């Protein structure tokens, strides 16, 4: 299964990855806060991920690593 890893402590909750994801499976986890007080992004349904890395391409803080199985 394709994997998208977020370095949640560095995520600034800007939402560009969610905007970029063609399948709209990334969202800001309003239930969580990272050390900086941001809602970190995460993939809500990882099984749908096609590892296109659009999220990583849009991330201003390079917190996303995308692995294709």
């Amino acid at each position: 299964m394709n994997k998208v890893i977020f370095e949640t402590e560095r995520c600034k909750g800007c939402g560009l990855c969610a905007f970029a994801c063609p399948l709209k499976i990334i969202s800001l986890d309003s239930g969580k806060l990272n050390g900086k007080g941001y809602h970190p992004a995460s993939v809500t349904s990882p099984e749908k991920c096609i590892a296109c890395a659009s999220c990583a391409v849009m991330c201003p803080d390079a917190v996303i690593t995308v692995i294709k199985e």
Partner: protein
Amino acid sequence: MIVYKRPESLSDVPMHYCPGCTHGIVHRLVAEVIDELGIENDTVGIAPVGCAVFAYNYFECDFIEASHGRAPAVATGVKRTHPDKIVFTYQGDGDLAAIGTAETVHAAARGENITIIFINNTNYGMTGGQMAPTTMPGQVTTTSPYGRQKLIQGNPIHVCEMLSTLDGVAYAERVAVNNVKNVRAAKRAIKKAFQNQIDKKGLSIVEVLSTCPTNWGLSPVDALKFVDEKMIPFYPLGVYADRNAMGGDEND
């Protein structure tokens, strides 16, 4: 198989940019290009005064902090004394097109064999959103509170168009980083701008339409839309110069 991970030459440290500020994307693209061209060992970056003043903390190559507007002159000093090194400046619109206009124009006219990454976000970000030479007509900033007015604050500068008239410019392209397609295109332009330097073609500049969510008072995603709706129509993307300007080193 890793499809994407942080580029090696982008330092593994948090960046101070505001959430959603696309400075971060451009930093990543420059670092990816440095990795792919394998030039980190021989690269010297020149940081501006502006939001990117701390760029030297975010790249693994050597870096020099320039005074406001003078990065092209500092780069000239480094490149002319080390023609085999790769020298790039990373500058904002106030830095490059206001206080540093003379340095920009003359580095271009001389055809310095350097690469300029020019971030156009239509305002002075670090100091809190003042009008810049690229602030658009009618655009509100803290020093054009009633919107930029032609008769008072004059007209914006189209940098790529202006510099493309200078024979020393090998390559001038305006790109944007407000969606995935544009980011990928921006990376191609940045890579070409560095490759030109390796091939000693003269000065290359990539003008990147960039967002400033904080000072524009927009959410990061709405700021991306602002680029589409307002900036790209006024600052058309595209290649404004693409030639071998035979700059710099050949003539030494």
